[in-house]
């Protein structure tokens, strides 16, 4: 299995060995297992580690440590942000703006809210996958309470103009939630400068452990939330439950590492991605899904006309890739994101999302390109529909 090529970093990232090493004492050492809520030496030690991690996460996104609320992951963070904000304001009948290509956690939450009387506008992105500022502004209504938009789309890598949008929403007094799972640790995120109110992030997309995430909740001006998990009053009452010290320490360390090489790593991944895209040009009739420029450095989503997606994946055993988001691939439906971009079923179903990351090498890219090209040619040759013209 040494020759496996992992190109599914947007689905989940391997745990960085440095993160693992930071976590292990909190899983093992006799002096590190206390409950961070306990009022004795063991508890205080765990609490100090939790607070250090909080500062590390805050540092990466330009926030204050007291603006970070731990959650069990991005799904919970997205739920807490959207349901918590509307519930706190008692705005069940209010209006919400989001897009059709959000993560399932946002879409399903919005669908649930619709059953509770909330009105939701689902914007269709432009053909390149980006949701424009003017598009969002045009969708606002007098009682719009919240806009929820992802910073980077997980399938196409499209970067939404959330930095330009944030002040426009702030001046209208509309809360702005950003699902930044695919942006944090990959693009500069500076919440000291960008007036986003709520922002979700997840550890296992940035080489941290699974099962931990965070929600940024702005203090000034204060974004107020109704808790979605009640209990002992942890996390300023916004999210109860015993804090999983090892997970939190892992997320903190992952953020510290990401902050250290953000720009250089972005440049490296962009270079590898372009190398891959250039090599794939050997094939006719391939389509880039997503914008050419405003795209997260590690993501390349390509439709290969004439090569059905499931067969293509099966032809590439050495490649761990995803056709569409891993969360929806169990259903084997063509990606709803690509459908929303106007791709027909055939092209949406013939797509591969190649997502690069920290351990991707040039040699891996070259091999991946060669294998993809061979597989596409084989399947096209086999197809009764295929013609080059």
């Amino acid at each position: 299995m040494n020759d496996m090529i992992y190109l599914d970093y947007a689905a989940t990232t391997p745990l960085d060995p440095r993160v693992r090493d930071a976590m292990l004492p909190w899983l093992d050492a006799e002096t590190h297992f206390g409950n961070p809520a306990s009022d004795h030496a063991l508890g205080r030690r765990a609490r100090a580690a939790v607070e250090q991690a909080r500062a590390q996460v805050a540092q990466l996104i330009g926030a204050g440590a007291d603006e970070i609320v731990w959650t069990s992951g991005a799904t919970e963070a997205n739920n807490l942000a959207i349901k918590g904000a509307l519930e706190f304001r008692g705005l069940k009948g209010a209006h919400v703006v989001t897009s059709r290509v959000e993560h399932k956690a946002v879409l399903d939450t919005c669908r649930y809210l619709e059953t509770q009387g909330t009105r939701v506008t689902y914007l269709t992105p432009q053909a390149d996958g980006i949701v424009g500022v003017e598009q969002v502004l045009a969708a606002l209504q007098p009682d719009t309470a919240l806009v929820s938009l992802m910073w980077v789309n997980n399938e196409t890598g499209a970067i939404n103009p959330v930095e330009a949008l944030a002040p426009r929403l702030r001046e209208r007094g509309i809360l702005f939630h950003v699902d930044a799972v695919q942006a944090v640790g990959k693009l500069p995120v500076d919440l000291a400068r960008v007036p986003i109110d709520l922002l979700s992030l997840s550890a296992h997309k940035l080489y941290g452990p699974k099962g931990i995430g965070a929600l940024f909740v702005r203090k000034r001006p204060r974004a107020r939330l109704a808790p979605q998990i009640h209990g002992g009053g942890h996390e300023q009452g916004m999210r109860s439950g015993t804090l999983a010290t090892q997970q939190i320490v892992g997320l903190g360390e992952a953020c510290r590492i990401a902050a250290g090489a953000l720009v250089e790593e972005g440049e490296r991944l962009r270079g590898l991605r372009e190398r891959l895209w250039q090599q794939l040009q050997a094939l006719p009739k391939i389509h880039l899904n997503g914008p050419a420029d405003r795209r997260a450095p590690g993501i390349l989503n390509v439709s290969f006309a004439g090569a059905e997606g499931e067969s293509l994946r099966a032809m590439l055993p050495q490649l761990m890739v995803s056709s569409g988001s891993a969360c929806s691939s169990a259903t084997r439906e063509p990606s709803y994101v690509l459908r929303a971009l106007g791709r027909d079923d055939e092209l949406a179903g013939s797509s591969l999302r190649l997502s690069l990351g920290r351990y991707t090498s040039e040699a891996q890219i070259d091999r991946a390109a060669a294998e993809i090209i061979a597989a596409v040619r084989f399947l096209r040759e086999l197809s009764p529909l295929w013609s080059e013209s």
Partner: protein
Amino acid sequence: MNPQDNVYAYREPIWQRFRAPRHAGRLDGAQVLSTQAGSAATRSVLRLQIELDGERVARARFRAYGCPTAIAVGEWLAEQLEARPRAAWAAIDVAAIRDALEIPDDKAHCALLGEDVLRALQQQMKQPS
């Protein structure tokens, strides 16, 4: 072909035919009959061709656009048409195809595609040429 390569755990009869089809290709000529079933919109198209030598099928070939199961169905059908007398073709139906290739429930539609293309072929052979 490395059996380790079957990382998505396709059933062996499907996997073998998908990775190393022996009857993929196209036939031309006056003695060739061609049929097709499925559509691009459903992401499954199966094209079947046979070359007749009198009553006997000299060669059978398929082309397929679809998932590995659909491709394996094409290969298996071509094998059968070369091996079985025409009288035995009627027995080739969804159940027989699923049995032979161990096709799971969620891929039953691929077996149906196979039955459709075979029936179309039989229909064509009945018509006077």
